[in-house]
């Protein structure tokens, strides 16, 4: 009995710790005051302001465009790289694995500054393209690390069997190998997508020409104060993710 109580209250506290801040953020998005910690009454005004604000809409578009494109491209490159690494001889494999791990361990700021230096040397104009390249770059290792375990689980003779049965190498890959490692690929894709969404450091250094992402926009508000407009936006994003999760749950149940 007591054990049960302890278990339950433990779980409760863990989840409260995770979700209380989000709840507060949602509550303050309806607060009539510009400041947190003070309740002035209920209002929808921040939502109205949010929909009026062109710059937020633009930043939202950029954020999602970059995240979707970077995730897809990084997934393609990462999956191909993972297969190559998987087939290497042990000595090369360990070298390449270390090279893959490095960017994961590297602080964001180092990645950001070094990419900025690279773009400057190449005389590239900072903007959407450089931002996209940067995001693809830091996403690739995560995709490789998500796909490799799936490749290890593969029966090594599967590909040979497919080839023996008359499949071309390409067919063997698309019809046999890829469906087997798909869960890893999807994990990598989602991981890359979320990493792109909330990256600030690398984005800040590699963007230009008026391309803002949401994280840059929010951060730059600190001089005059972050308005609850951002709370309103975060609330909508949170609701969107929640809706998506519920939909997925429903689909799994029907399958």
């Amino acid at each position, binding site marked *: 009995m007591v054990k049960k109580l302890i278990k339950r209250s433990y779980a409760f506290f863990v989840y409260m710790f995770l979700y209380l801040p989000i709840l507060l953020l949602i509550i303050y998005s309806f607060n009539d005051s510009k400041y947190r910690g003070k309740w*002035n009454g209920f209002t929808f005004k921040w939502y109205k302001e949010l929909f009026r604000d062109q710059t937020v809409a633009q930043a939202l578009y950029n954020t999602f465009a970059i995240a979707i494109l970077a995730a897809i491209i990084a997934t393609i490159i990462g999956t191909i790289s993972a297969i190559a690494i998987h087939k290497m001889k042990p000595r090369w494999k360990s070298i390449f694995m270390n090279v893959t791990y490095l960017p994961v361990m590297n602080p964001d700021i180092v990645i950001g500054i070094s990419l900025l230096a690279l773009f*400057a040397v190449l*005389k590239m104009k900072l903007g959407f393209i450089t931002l996209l390249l940067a995001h693809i770059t830091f996403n690739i290792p995560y995709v490789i690390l998500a796909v490799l375990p799936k490749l290890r689980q593969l029966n090594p003779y599967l590909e040979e069997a497919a080839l023996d049965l008359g499949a071309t190498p390409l067919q063997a890959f698309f019809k046999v190998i890829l469906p087997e490692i798909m869960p890893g690929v999807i994990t990598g894709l989602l991981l890359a997508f979320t990493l792109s969404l909330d990256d600030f450091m690398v984005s800040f250094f590699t963007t230009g020409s008026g391309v803002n992402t949401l994280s840059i926009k929010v951060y730059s508000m600190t001089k005059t104060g972050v308005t609850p407009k951002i709370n309103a936006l975060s609330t909508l994003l949170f609701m969107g993710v929640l809706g998506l999760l519920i939909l997925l749950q429903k689909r799994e149940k029907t399958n």
Partner: protein
Amino acid sequence: MKKTLLLLVLCMVFSLFTGCGEKVNEQGYYSKLNVYNWGEYIDPQVLEDFEKEYGIKVYYETYAGNEEMLTKVQAGGTDYDVIFPSDYMIEAMVKEGLLQELDFNNLSNFKKIGDEFKNLPYDKDNKYSVPYLWGTIGILYDTTKIKEDIDSWSAMWDEKYKGDIVMFDSVRDNIGIALKKLGYSMNTTDSHELEEAKKELLKQKALVKAYDSDAYKDMMASGEAGMSMCFLGDAMVLMEENQNLKYVLPKEGTNLWFDTMAVPVTSKHKKEAELFINYMMRPEVAAKCAEFVMYATPNNEGVKLLPEEIRENEIIYPKGNIFEKGEVFIDLGEFTTEYDRIWTEVKAY
């Protein structure tokens, strides 16, 4: 599902490669302008009006600090046309050759700027910048917690208010205030004076609730803190929120700061950049921005267009010679590292 996703991606890729090339609109202007400004530091309406009037699309990017902006401009690869550096940053950027001289023939509205705001120490001959907004730093305090009338920086060193005091998390501002309290210049390069300021800050450390440059506003609005350093504009908004708050310019003097408009060397469209700056100096535009941000505008004719309660407010527009009330930060060049060192030592103590 798959097809729509593919379509979406194709659309995005396609949109990357359109909208390039040098385009001139029917008014003879290049149709793109990159503006790099502080976040929430302009009335969005103003940008829309500018776009309509001149047929120039404004690409608007934001930053949170002078140093960040400098990093981006220095690195190259950006093509900002108009930036908004603060006073000391103008000097630093001029030294590095990062700013273009302005052609005042294209800036007919410069005469609307008050004479006292021209040729300031950070840009002596007024070649590189025009002021956009200005203001002071003062003490904002909660009259329910602090019963006396405060008029001096020493209130922030008062044992009585232990745990109620919030200071910025900023090198120049904090050391500057300690120097002012001691009666020295905020721009001192005398090591002894700096050491004294350090002692002051160390003395104060036990009393300070937090060193913070953003959340202090929430603390003040909700009555969690009793007094804090505060920028003028924030003080105005906070006083509207919470009637018990009061803002004061300490008698020892304070920091006067100016945010300006300038054209960095990265700009390839100086004509359009100057067009934008000139537009921003129109009295009605300056007034709109001043009201939106709640800082003071140096645009004398703009001031006249403001509502009376703002125009007549001596906190925003102090009467008399403003330079008797405060100092403008100047760029200390190499000596800046000394300030950084002192602040690091204070924070680590």
